[in-house]
């Protein structure tokens, strides 16, 4: 059997961490773009669009992320397309992220006083222009803290991609554990690395929230 030193374990975990970070970034940014489109639909006042977004959000917030990963992994295969764990994971995590971000941002948009909508409507701005020039610039200020806060959930969410076989930090931990039989050490290190990724984000989110509250 191969002999793994502490440094071997750690360096292998850190290499896999790269994939956790890449997956997180893709899910967060693509989820943000999808979320923004959904936000426009959700607040448009057009009933079918609102109904669609509501059900979309209900589904992705009301079912386990793990189920969503399974459904994408096995569901896309039904169309005869070869699915890699990577593809299923990015897709599922992106849509899952978009649902939560839409809901967070909707709250921010709705906290903008009604007078801002009316004044901009009176100036002949269309709905898209109202959002673009008047509502979103104000909502964005409030949205930054909870959005950064949610990025922590995205990083943690990527850990579930390990279950459908995508090799990122958690999967690497499982593999190293099987090879070394040192579960206490391996999972402590895995947890420590996640903590190093997530804690700065949590801390930053709290800082932003505090600054916003102080400004009010």
């Amino acid at each position, binding site marked *: 059997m191969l002999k793994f030193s502490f440094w071997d374990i750690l360096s292998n975990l850190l290499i896999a961490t790269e994939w956790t970070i890449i997956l997180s970034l893709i899910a967060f940014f693509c989820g943000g773009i999808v979320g923004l489109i959904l936000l426009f639909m959700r607040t448009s006042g057009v009933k079918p669009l609102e109904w669609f977004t509501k059900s979309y959000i209900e589904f992705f917030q009301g079912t386990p992320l793990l189920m969503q990963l399974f459904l994408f992994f096995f569901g896309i295969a039904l169309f005869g397309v070869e699915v890699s764990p990577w593809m299923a994971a990015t897709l599922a995590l992106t849509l899952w992220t978009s649902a939560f971000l839409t809901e967070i941002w909707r709250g921010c948009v709705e906290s903008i006083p009604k007078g801002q909508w009316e004044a901009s409507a009176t100036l002949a701005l269309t709905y898209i222009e109202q959002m673009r020039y008047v509502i979103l610039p104000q909502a964005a200020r409030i949205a930054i803290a909870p959005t950064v806060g949610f990025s922590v959930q995205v990083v943690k969410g990527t850990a579930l991609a390990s279950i459908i076989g995508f090799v990122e930090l958690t999967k690497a931990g499982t593999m190293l554990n099987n090879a070394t039989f040192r579960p*206490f050490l391996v999972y402590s290190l895995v947890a420590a690395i996640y903590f190093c990724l997530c804690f700065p984000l949590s801390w930053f989110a709290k800082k932003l929230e505090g600054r916003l509250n102080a400004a009010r």
Partner: protein
Amino acid sequence: MLYKLEFGDLLPYWDVLLQGLVFTIVLTVVSTVAGIAVGTAGASARTFGPAWLGRVVVVYVELIRNTPFIVQLFFIFFGLPAAGVTLSETTAAFIAMVINLGAYSTEIIRAGIQAIPKGHIEAGVSLAMSKWEVLRHIVLNQAFRKIYPALSSQIIIVMLGSSVVSQISAQDLTYAANFVASRNFRNFEVYLLAALAYLLLAMLTRSLLRGLGRIIFKAE
């Protein structure tokens, strides 16, 4: 190629899936009650306890909130035996859930306590109430009223997150779905059914908690 969905193949396994569903419900209920108890203790210790205890609580909360649940679960189930603590998969699942929800509810309840005006505590003290009486009747009572919606959402998040316990072979709904899929290879159908069961459970839990909240906090 068009694939034809066959939900009929799931029928022979209805009892397996039902057992899984029951396990998930029990797991959620027990960890909710125990988790909120942990959270109440944690939040009280953090706000009113000695400084060292407060620091211990902060470390606990931040460690849990900044690591994935699945890693916590693996650590408890696979890691702890190496340190001499061996747990069955069911016990490990329950403990991990309680620890997880405990940390989140500590943070939520603490925020509720902080939102209570200092004057209320002083008023209680000036009415000759003891520290414990003030905590129970004035502080926690009001705090829970305030944070009930946030706590409710967290309970649903934790319920959905519990599907991960299948990975240490705790026999919840997801474990049952995995089992059925391995038998009849109807992966998509069984996961779709399970997902819908979770969705229904989430919606049910939400309205149940809302109704419960109305009964508990009706005096307003």
